[in-house]
């Protein structure tokens, strides 16, 4: 009879959950579901989630004896953080083939060159290289869930990303690198997003009634505040960032042989 106990610890807005499974008689397929109110960030190797992890938790073969699993989530801790949904003995642990592409990548290592190695236009390695070790598509598969390191990395580093944690004392339009060097169609939209983010931050920080009154008035009334709260600006900005990064990779890879074309013309 499998028993489960969990411990949690919270660091910088991320909850780490340790799940201990004991008294496993033989190889057992278990399904463990996270009960915390947030996405499951599974352990990854070479950027690929370890075998068995799903959006809800873990579904795989463990044991015999004792087994320990762990995951992270942005949700605050609560008790219990995870529950054992099912536990069924299985004949042996070798029922899962290792030839699926994700397993091969996990076992043998991702051959993708690191972002730092990709030259930028001026011949220098990328200075503001993607802070996430694996390129974007891994996270796209997971939807909009981002691993914890993205948040810390963009706050600490790349100011060129519109997602970076904003400073408080600058003017909205300039603190994320400004919009002057961006195309006409993109600049105003980003500037508007920066204004909305600013407004949202001010609203989230109010502590006293006069502050709240002032913040709501500045935001354009309660209806506007409600609209702002419901709009998924973050998802839109992230989608833009992913798309822009992919396009930038493509564009950087396309070298136009001007001299050759000139000679041929």
């Amino acid at each position: 009879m499998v028993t489960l106990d969990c411990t949690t610890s919270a660091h910088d807005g991320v909850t780490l959950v340790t799940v201990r499974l004991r008294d496993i008689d033989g190889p057992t397929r278990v399904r463990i579901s996270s009960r915390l109110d947030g996405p499951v960030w599974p352990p990854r190797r070479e950027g690929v989630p370890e075998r068995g992890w799903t959006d809800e938790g873990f579904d795989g073969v463990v044991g015999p004896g004792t087994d320990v699993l762990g995951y992270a989530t942005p949700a605050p801790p609560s008790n219990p953080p995870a529950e054992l949904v099912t536990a069924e003995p299985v004949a042996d642990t070798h029922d899962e083939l290792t030839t699926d592409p994700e397993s091969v990548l996990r076992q043998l290592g991702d051959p993708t060159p690191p972002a730092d190695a990709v030259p930028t236009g001026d011949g220098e390695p990328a200075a503001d290289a993607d802070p996430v070790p694996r390129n974007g598509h891994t996270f796209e598969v997971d939807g909009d869930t981002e691993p914890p390191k993205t948040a810390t990395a963009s706050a600490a580093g790349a100011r060129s990303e519109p997602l970076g944690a904003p400073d408080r004392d600058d003017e909205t339009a300039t603190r994320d690198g400004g919009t002057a060097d961006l195309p006409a169609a993109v600049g105003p939209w980003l500037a508007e997003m920066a204004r909305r983010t600013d407004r949202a931050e001010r609203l989230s920080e109010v502590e006293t009634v006069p502050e709240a009154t002032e913040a709501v008035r500045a935001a354009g009334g309660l209806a506007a505040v409600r609209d702002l709260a419901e709009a998924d600006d973050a998802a839109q900005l992230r989608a833009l960032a992913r798309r822009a990064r992919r396009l930038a990779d493509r564009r950087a890879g396309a070298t136009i042989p001007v001299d050759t074309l000139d000679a041929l013309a």
Partner: protein
Amino acid sequence: MILAVTGGKGGVGKSTVAYNLAGQLDGLVVDGDLAMADLPGGRGPDLHDVLADRADPCEAVRTDGPVAVVPCGRTLSGARAADPTALTETLRTLDRRHRWVVVDSPAGLRADVGLPLAAADAAVVVTTPSTAAVADALRVRALARELDAGLCRVVLNRADGSSMADAVADRFGAPVVTVPDSDALAAAQRNGQPVARTAPNSGAATAFERLAAGVYDCSSV
């Protein structure tokens, strides 16, 4: 049928063997070296584009040369934008259109070597007679076995005489095809030609005929 041409050590002649084998089989050769392409390129979409979901696998097939090729891009940014796990499905798609899909694998033992092996029906391991190359080739053979790619033939490249062939066949547990060191072969590869076309009577051309016959045997088992 998907054939992974692999070998562990760099410079043992994997690309030469893959290209000439595809030529003999009248098949398609895919340059699977995502970071350091070896086979002739040209203009148009390449494997990087396919793996980044920017082109259909069939769009990347070049048929204007003597051997049908899916070339691979040569830029690091292209390699970075490519999703290596998409290689499996790409090879399967090509396999539905082509009788023979020969994958030229990179050196090493990373996932870019493992993924073609995982998709492949059989593997051809290339080595030179040097001890280091044989040791690396044996490691790749172990990986191929783990990933269910049966070892079809071992190519003993740049080998003179057959004195080593029996010992190598013994170590690998598979038949060996010896390819002699050949200027004609090197020159053909430099010019993007199969040696059967530039020097059809050379020892190297005969060796690739034997290799192709061996691969036919494997496929009919």
